[in-house]
């Protein structure tokens, strides 16, 4: 499958990936509205760790054998057997945080959406569940510090 990889050599901590992710995962897909007006506030699924000297963007690795899927008590977290995309169905998620306790990268977060705790994570900017789109973090990265390339594994 195609995966997103972060290259810390090029990352300049600008956090535009976070802005692009939040915008894509908003109702209006408009950055200003996403940040200032929408409720519930949309959330970025990518997060930059570090500072000006050393930084790296972290999002879901879409593992071959994902622990978040194996552990999910509700069946909300699944890996698409064809595309390999790991997604969470928020209508099923109950916010127990088993996924948070198992993801080795800190790539799943549980946030409050309309008063209910729900897991959120990178879905490769899918327009339909499990079908990867064009990851907006990669498109927006000014430095090629995020690349979206065919990987060596499922």
């Amino acid at each position, binding site marked *: 499958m195609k995966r997103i990889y972060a290259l810390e050599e090029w990352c300049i901590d600008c956090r535009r990936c976070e802005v692009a992710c939040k915008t894509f995962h908003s109702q209006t897909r408009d950055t200003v509205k996403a940040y200032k007006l929408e409720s519930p506030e949309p959330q970025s699924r990518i997060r930059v760790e570090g500072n000006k000297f050393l930084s790296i963007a972290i999002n879901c690795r879409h593992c071959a054998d994902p622990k978040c899927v194996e552990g999910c008590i*509700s*069946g909300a977290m699944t890996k698409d057997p064809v595309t390999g995309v790991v997604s969470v169905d928020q209508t099923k998620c109950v916010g127990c945080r088993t996924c948070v*306790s198992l993801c080795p990268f*800190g790539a799943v977060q549980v946030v409050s959406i309309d008063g209910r705790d729900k897991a959120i994570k990178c879905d490769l900017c899918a327009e339909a569940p499990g079908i990867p789109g064009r990851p907006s973090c990669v498109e927006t990265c000014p430095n090629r510090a995020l690349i979206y390339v065919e990987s060596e*594994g499922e």
Partner: protein
Amino acid sequence: MATLNSDYLIIGNSAAGVTAAETIRAKDPYGTITLISREPHHVYGRPLISYLIEGKTTLDAMKFKPETFYEDHKITALLGDEFEALTLDPEAHEVGLKNGDSIGYGRCLLATGSVPFTPPIKGLQGKSNVFTFITLDDAEQAWAAAVEASLKASESGRCSRVVVIGSGLIGLKAAEALSHHLDEISVLELADRILPTVLDPEGSALLQRLLEPHGITCYPGLTADEVLGEGDQAVGVRLTNGECLDCDLIIAAVGVRPNSSLALEAGAQSGRGLIVDERLLTSLPDVYAAGDVVQVCDVLDGSEHPLALWPNAMHQGKIAGRQMAGDETALFHGSFAVNAVDFFDISLLTAGVINPREDMGCEIDIYAEDNSYAKFVKQDGKLIGYILLNRPQNAGIYTALIENGVDLDSLDQDIFLETPQNLDFDNEMRWERLHKFYPRDLDRRGWKEKI
């Protein structure tokens, strides 16, 4: 002669059984798979029964697999009380059902889970308002009783009350769920603190304090001496200190034990759960076991006990399925406990060794604030356990440190102080972790290598 024959027979329609069936089908498109359960429901997330009562999920949303799962995977699912397996004949490769039918199998999986342990408390037996809290049916009955109790209590202008016996994960999840319907929730605990197996004294005390504003009062060090009844109704509980608590219903949640009787009667070896080898094969020929029913070796301290957790059942179901379908490379190498549980807005994550014995020579770090508590247990320069009460962020990074036995000296020393990060790993390990399956023809700058 068996009434029905199946290449694969799976007993249990939950995490382990369903995962095994799905895995078998992926490996073997033609073998016949029969899956039986004494519960009449489509597979559901067992841990979700408390969320159902709270309105955080629905009967439909808690289905663990899509509606058409069994058809899609060509699995014959026999679901209902009449399909309870009563006998297992390992020689004849046959299982006898309650309805008198028998099923012949090539390979059989016991994924029968846990059954509640019934405490020998005087007066508890035979009361119609005493419930266990294991199955969807249990939950629906307790829920209906709570709604009725709440109505009756408000008609007569008094508080509605439940006594929960046992403050393990199941007892506390039942308490949380029922607190949405009842006024006073009393939780009894024989040990000197609540959630004794997954918390330490400080963590238990904090959790107990955080539960109080939600109408949940815990009584550590006390349990029920006698259930006081009127006819078939429990109306109160006399505690071990002589005091009495009135109640409208009781939840009995003192613990679970492996549901292994079928295999035991057939002569299978067992310790604290069914004994299996790395292939998850029991001592009976062609009989595998997975999930709560199995005794697992704890990789952190070598102890042997059942690991009654959903992710473990899923993991073992996958391995058993692969083995049964002939993939002998899938092996089970032991595990350790990772518990994730939430109560109201409280999050509790724990893993590994939480209360190390003196002689284990562990070092312990504690970071406590008003409403949060973090404890890290280290041994020989490695992390072997943690408690994270209200500090869940990125917890899986800690779990991975335990699982992979990462040398803590190689990490940023602040990793335990606050939210752990990927940047806390050294360059090499960080690259390895984050770049699995990285294209071979690219270098670390993302450039095609010059040849």
